[in-house]
């Protein structure tokens, strides 16, 4: 949503390449952070900040592929763009299988890299927004009482108040009261809004 809040993390063991890429990203007005090794990145990254990762496959110490595995284990959602050298194709294939956003062969055209970065950032921000909304809904859901949660489930399933009253063996009036509380607590202006909240909440976390 807001690109400026995202950071492009660059990990490459070659100092010159790292510096050049940082300059390039800077020239297009994006924020970036550079790391000389995979371990340095793992040490610095908080695990939640948005953005994307530009990663050299072949590195001394922990390789790019190994870093990818670590991040998957940690459920880090940063999209990864691999930069591969000559003859690293098999590694690149493996990286893609593991869910890399894309890979670029060196030497590459700079615009291509920038395009990939923008795509990755956009995708990352979309996911991040969706996640944010869901977590907000989940928080609101947790404020509902048990009876209000039952009523919430039945309302969003399209049941009429009367039906709910019979099923829960409560009065229509009481259903009305609960419904009002649910709408207020969930900050929903309409039943349609409430249903959307329910759908988001039911999405599996990414």
């Amino acid at each position: 949503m807001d690109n400026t809040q995202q950071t492009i993390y660059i990990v490459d063991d070659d100092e010159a390449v790292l510096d050049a890429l940082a300059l390039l990203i800077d020239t297009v007005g994006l924020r970036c952070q550079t790391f000389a090794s995979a371990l340095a990145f793992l040490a610095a990254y908080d695990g939640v900040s948005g953005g994307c990762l530009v990663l050299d496959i072949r590195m001394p110490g922990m390789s790019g592929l190994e870093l990818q595995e670590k991040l998957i284990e940690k459920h880090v959602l940063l999209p990864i763009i691999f930069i591969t050298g000559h003859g690293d194709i098999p590694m690149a294939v493996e990286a893609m299988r593991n869910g890399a956003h894309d890979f670029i062969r060196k030497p590459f055209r700079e615009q291509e890299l920038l395009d990939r970065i923008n795509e990755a950032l956009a995708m990352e921000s979309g996911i991040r927004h969706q996640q944010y909304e869901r977590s907000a809904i989940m928080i609101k859901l947790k404020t509902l009482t048990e009876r209000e949660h039952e009523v919430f489930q039945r309302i969003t399933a399209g049941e009429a108040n009367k039906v709910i009253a019979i099923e829960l063996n409560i009065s229509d009036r009481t259903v009305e009261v609960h419904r009002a509380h649910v709408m207020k607590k969930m900050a929903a202006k309409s039943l349609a809004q409430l249903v959307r909240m329910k759908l988001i909440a039911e999405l599996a976390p990414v």
Partner: protein
Amino acid sequence: MNFSSAVLAITTRSSLRALCLLLLCLLCSSHSYAREQANLASRDVLILSSTQFPSEWTKQTIAGIQAEFDVAPRPVRPVYEYLDRSMFLNRTPAPELAQAVKRKYQHGFALLIATDGDALQFLIQHRAEIAPRAPIVFCRVRKLGKGELQGISAITGVVDYIPIKETLELIKSVHPDVSNIAVVLDSSTVGIQLRKELQGAKRAAAKEGLTITALDDWTFTELDAALNKLPAESVVVLASAVLDSSGELRSLDESIEFVTSRTTLPIYTVWDMSIQQGVLGGVVETAAARGRNTARLALRVLGGESADNIPLFLLNSHIPMFDYVALKQHNVDLQAIPSGAAILNKPPEYYQPNMLLVWLGSLLFVSQAAIIWSLIYNIRKRQRTETELRHSEQRYRTLTKLAPVGIFHASADAATLHYVNDAFRSITGLGEQDVISEHWFAHVHPEDRSKVEQSVEKMRQTQVIERSEQRFVRADGSSAWIVADAAAEYDDNGNMTGLIGTLTDISELKQIQAELQRQQAYDAAVMNTAAEGIIIIDEHSTVVSFNRAAENMFGYAAEEVIGNNLTMLMPSPYCDEHAKYVERYLQTGEKRVIGTGREISGLHKNGEQFPMYLALSEVNVNGERSFTGIMRDVTKVKAVQEELLLKNEQLEVLVNQAPLGIASFRLSGEILQANRVFCEMTGYSLEELEQLSMLELSHPKDWKEIMQFTQAAAQGEILHYRRRGRYIKKNGDELQVEIFNAVTHDEWGRPHLLIAQVMDLTEQMLAEQMNQVNQERLAQVGRLSVLGEMSAGIAHEINQPLTAISVYADSGMRLLQAGKLERLPDVLEKLAAQARRAGGVIERVQRLARRQVPARETADCNVLLSEVCKIIEKDANMSNIELTLDLQENLPQVYCDAIQIQQVMLNLLRNSVDAIRQNPQSSGGEITVVTECFDQEVEVIVSDNGPGVDVELIGALFEPFATTKIKGIGLGLPISRAIIEAHDGELRFSNNVDAGATFCFTLPTI
């Protein structure tokens, strides 16, 4: 009578005497019988003699009477009585004597006979008391005095005289030279009477110049002296010498003996019975004739004649009589003897006038001689028998003494031992006391005592003696087994009187028996439990024994075989040969099988043959030969043997053909066996090695280690070990070896031998040394070989600056467009730096490939190639690629940087391997390497049967980074070409016609 007395003299023994008496009884029996049948009362006759005991004279007189009585027509019963002469002489015969006779013979007598003067006197005096009416018949030598019988009735008799004058005449005629005749006269009635008669003779002789001396009135002592004093030419006349002047009375025989023993002069007598006792002769009266005449008168009286009517009979029956022996003794001329003289002991002359007597006598003599002879024969025989008996007894005594068996003589109830020999004592241990008493029984072994008691009891009851065995306990406590045999002795009534028997010590026999039994039991056990078949045959091959194992082996029961010929157990060729073998052995004694063993075939009952091993031994007992065969079925053994042989052979081949040296040796180090390689390795022959120990073979510096190992092996701590060491070869060289020792164990699981497998390390060590030398060069080659694999890394190295350059340039462009010019110089500077960096990478790679200073040396391409092949061989083998080297011999040397050339070789070979590996072919890959020399150039050709080079790639083949390999970077061939060209050579390529590619390079020779 003479014969009888001769017989009596000879037959001194009692038995003979009895026989003679019997004979006499027979001769007299008829007369005794006749007497008994007569009317005895009227013919009882008292015959009275005066002598105290019957003298020879009296005896012969009575015998004459008796002889006449015996032939009397009617029997006469005579009674003989004798007066005590000494009583007569000293005093008047006592009337008591007559009374005694009267009382004794109360029936009286028909007749009284007096045989001498004294008796006549007694009868005349006492006839009234004894038999008042009985007539008296007498005989006497004394002349009757006138009127001597006056007034006495019923009396008659024979009157005799002593022929002393006739004797003197005889002496004169026989001994004409005699000068002195001494007449011995005693003090008896006869002697006194003769003194008177001699007076007239003396006077008559004196006229003829002959002296007649009367030796009278002497004691026997005085007579002795007188006889001794007689002159030489004297003759003695023994008239009477029974009573001396002192009253000493001697018998006639004694008197004769007295005189004859005192003088050697010829002695004459007047009594016939005196001749023959050393007396020469004389004119004698025979007492028997007088007795017979007396008896005839008596018979006439008994016949009824009155005694008074019978005149006195004057007897004149004197005859000269000589003893032939004495005549000879005194050398008397027989011619001088008067013809009518009787010569005693001169049979013919004696018997001639008495033919009947002679015949009778001869008959008697013959019969008696026969009897005597038979008696003598019997005596001799008996003596001989007795001698033999004595000897025999002696022998038996010796035998019993020496006999090894005990001999005893016991009472019938066996309770008392009368005699035992020494052996008996030594066997039973019985002492002297035990033998004579019943103690022997106490020495019977306590366990056998009841048995002995029973058998003795049984013997007592049934008289049946059984052989018995029992033990005796000796004094020293040892016991002896005894077998006793006995036989009974019986008396004439058939009662058992004793036992005689033997004892044999059978202790040893018992022991041997027991031993034998045990041995037999053992033998039987051995025979029947033996795993081997055991067959015993005799000389004729007849089976005597057949044990259980043999039964199993041959399938026959023992009974089926025993007694049959052994050949039934043999298949046909053997059974024929067997007979020959046995025959030959028995004849020649030549042993072929005996004592050794051999393998033959046996015939089973079911007809099958089977191999067996036979060991044969001979037993010779008392000349009887038998053969014992021990056999084992070797069917299985043979199979195992063959298998073993096969395995052995395999093992032998394995050991001998093994490329390793193999030797076995004791823990002590002694070498037992070694294979060919081991011998070649050490330079010793097997025989020499057998004299050596492992230590001697090893380098002294290894000894400590060897001993430690060996000790550990001996204690079972290790079963095998490996070590490197040095052997000292026979020629003194050291030999580097690697030894693998393994321990073998004996049947008890103890460490036994060590088997050493020895590898000659000489070549390996040399190779290792060579390797070390080439290590560095190969390291370079390795480094180069890594280069290819590192091409990806090299690419990365170049890519990095290129990427940076590209990014900087793009960024600079954007800055320029954005008008941010102030930042451009920095960007451009960085860009330039990255460009330089890229150049540096290239240069580094080039420098690596080239080496900064090429080191040139002379080298043999074949050697270089061989080393490289060793590196590539492993890869090739793994990919099933056959690498063939066809290297030209004596290849000229080249002057080159060996490492670089090897890099090229390695590169080409690796390309070929990779090419084949990328396109595997069913037939398997082949790489051929050839070296050749042409025209001052050495050419190395590497050819493969891979896919070859793509046509489109051929142009760029030697361009850098042109590669078809997944991991290749395309620098190998360019660098290789660069290297070869740097050596003034050429690297070329061509695809093969059929398949694959060929690369070759050339190098100039020196």
